[in-house]
C-alpha cells in the first residue's frame, strides 16, 4: 500500500477545507442568536422556528417540490426514450439533429435557455406559472437523463437483448424484461439528477415563471440580494442536511449493492 506524501496530505486537507468550510460556517451560524450574522451571540434555534412560520417560504418550497417531482419524472421517461433511440434506434431521418438537440442544452448558458423558452411561451400566448416551469425543467433535464442512461446502454452486452428477441419476445417485452432491469440504476440516477437540477434552478425559473408561481430558489434569490439573513442560513442548513443524508445513503446503498453482486459472482464461480 502506498502512503500519501506530506504534499498530497496538505493538498487534500486544503482542498476539502475549501470545499466544506463555507458550508460549515453557514450551518454553524444558522444557530446564532444574533440578527447580525457574522457576530456570534450564543446558541439558538429561533431562526428555524421563524422559518417554519414563514408561509411564503413554505409555499415556495411546496411549489418547488411539486415542480421537481413532476418535471424529473417526465424528464426520466423522455430522456430514457431518447437514449434508447440514440443508442439502439439505428438510422432515422434527422438523427444528427436529434443528437445535437440532446447535447446542446448541456452546455447552453441558462440565461439563453430561459430567454428562448420565455419567448416561446409568450409567442404562443401561454400563461406563465407552474406549468411553464415544469415544461422548461423537463426539457433541459431530459438531456442530462439521456446522457446518463445512454452511457449505461452503450456499456451493456447487446446479445442479451438479441437472445430475448430470438426466443420470441416482442421488442417491448425484451425492453421491459431485459433492458430496463439492467439500465435501472442509470434511470434512477438520471431521475435523481433531474430532480436536483430542478430543485436548484434559479435562472430558467426566473425567466419562465409568472407572478402566480415562485420557487424556493427564486424566493431565496430575492431575499439574498438584500444581503445575508439568518433565516436564509437556517433554510440553507436544512437543505444541506437533506442533500448530505440523501447522497450518503445513496452511496452506502450502491456500495452494498456492488458488494452483494461481487459475493454472488464469487459464489457462482465456486459452484461451477
Amino acid at each position, binding site marked *: 500500500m502506498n502512503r*500519501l506524501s506530506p504534499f498530497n496530505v496538505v493538498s487534500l486537507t486544503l482542498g476539502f477545507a475549501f470545499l466544506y468550510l463555507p458550508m460549515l460556517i453557514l450551518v454553524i451560524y444558522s444557530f446564532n442568536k444574533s440578527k447580525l450574522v457574522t457576530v456570534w451571540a450564543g446558541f439558538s434555534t429561533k431562526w428555524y422556528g421563524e422559518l417554519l412560520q414563514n408561509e411564503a417560504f413554505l409555499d415556495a418550497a411546496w411549489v418547488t417540490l411539486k415542480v421537481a417531482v413532476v418535471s424529473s419524472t417526465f424528464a426520466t421517461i423522455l430522456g430514457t426514450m431518447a437514449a434508447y433511440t440514440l443508442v439502439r434506434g439505428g438510422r432515422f431521418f*434527422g438523427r444528427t439533429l*436529434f443528437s445535437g438537440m440532446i447535447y446542446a442544452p448541456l*452546455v447552453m448558458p441558462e440565461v439563453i435557455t430561459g430567454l*428562448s423558452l420565455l419567448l416561446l411561451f409568450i409567442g404562443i400566448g401561454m400563461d406563465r406559472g407552474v406549468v411553464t416551469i415544469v415544461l422548461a425543467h423537463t426539457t433541459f433535464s431530459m438531456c442530462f437523463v439521456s446522457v446518463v442512461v445512454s452511457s449505461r446502454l452503450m456499456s451493456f452486452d447487446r446479445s442479451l437483448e438479441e437472445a430475448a428477441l430470438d426466443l420470441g419476445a416482442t421488442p417491448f417485452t425484451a425492453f421491459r424484461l431485459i433492458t430496463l432491469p439492467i439500465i435501472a440504476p442509470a434511470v434512477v440516477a438520471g431521475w435523481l439528477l433531474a430532480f436536483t437540477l430542478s430543485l436548484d434552478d434559479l435562472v430558467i425559473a426566473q425567466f419562465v415563471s409568472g407572478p402566480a408561481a415562485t420557487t424556493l430558489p427564486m424566493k431565496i434569490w430575492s431575499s*439574498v440580494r438584500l444581503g445575508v439573513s439568518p433565516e436564509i442560513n437556517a433554510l440553507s442548513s436544512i437543505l444541506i442536511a437533506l442533500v448530505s443524508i440523501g447522497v450518503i445513503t445513496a452511496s452506502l446503498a450502491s456500495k452494498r449493492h456492488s458488494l452483494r453482486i461481487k459475493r454472488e459472482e464469487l459464489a457462482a464461480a465456486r459452484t461451477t
Partner: protein
Amino acid sequence: MRRALLISVPYFWLLVLFLVPFAMVFKISLSDSVLAIPPYAPTMKEGIWALLTQLDFENFTFLTTDDLYWKAYLSSVRIAAISTVLTLAVGYPVAYAMARAPEEWRATLMMLVILPFWTSFLIRVYAWIGILSTEGFLNQFLFGIGLISEPLTILNTPTAVYIGIVYTYVPFMILPIYAALERLDGSLIEAAEDLGCSRLQAFWLVTIPLSKNGIIAGCFLVFIPALGEFVIPSLLGGSSTLMIGKVLFEEFFSNRDWPVASAVAVILLLILIVPIILFQRNEQKQAEADQ
C-alpha cells in the same frame, strides 16, 4: 409503429421546446423594438420575402456602438479564462492526491467531491457573502491573527467572482483530471526516475502529458459555463463586475428591450461555439483512445 412513436415523442418535444424557441431568439434579435407586449415588432407575418427584405441588423450594430456590450463580452471571457486557470491550480493537486490515496479511500473522497455538486448552487455562492464582506469571517480571521489592520474589500470586486467560480466549479475540474490520473501507470514514473529524472521532471514530463486530456476536459467544463454565468457575478461581483450573462438578464428584465437581449444571446452563443466544438473534439479523441 412503436419505434416511430419512441423516436418521435422526445424528438418533437425537443423540436418544440428547444429548437423553435431558439429560432425565435434569432428572429427577435432581427426585429425592431416597440413599446408593446410582447415588446417587439413581428417580422414573419407577411411571408418569407417580406421577412428577408425587412431583416435589420440594427440590434447588432447597436451592440457594436455601445461599448458596454463588447466590454462585457471581453470581461466575461477574461474572467472565465482567469477563473479556469485558478480552478486548475486548485483542482489539480487535489485530483493528484486523490489518485495517490490508498484505494479504499478513493470512493469516499470521490463522494466528498461530488456532494457539494448536489447541494444548491445558489446557497454555495451565498455562503461566500458572509465570508468575504468587510465585516465577514475572512476579515475577522485575518484581523484576529494580526495579518491586517484594515479590512480588505473583497466582496463586490472581480476577486470575489473568481473565488465564487473556483469554488462552485472545482468539482468539474477535479473529476476528469482524477479519472485521467487514476489510470496512469505508476511504473512509468518509476521508469522516468530510474532513468535519471528528478521527481519534478518526471511529473512535468510524464504525469502532466498523460493527464492532458483530463486537464483539457476540466478546463472546458469550467470555462463554458463560467462564460455565461449570471448568479455569481450578480451576488459577489457587485456593480463593478461586468459579465454578459448579467447584462443579458438586466437588458431583458430591467430595460425590457427584448430584441437587444436576443442579439446579446445570439452573440454569446457564437462566442461559445468555438470552445464547445474544441471540447467535443477532445472528448471524441479521448473516446477513440479508449477503444
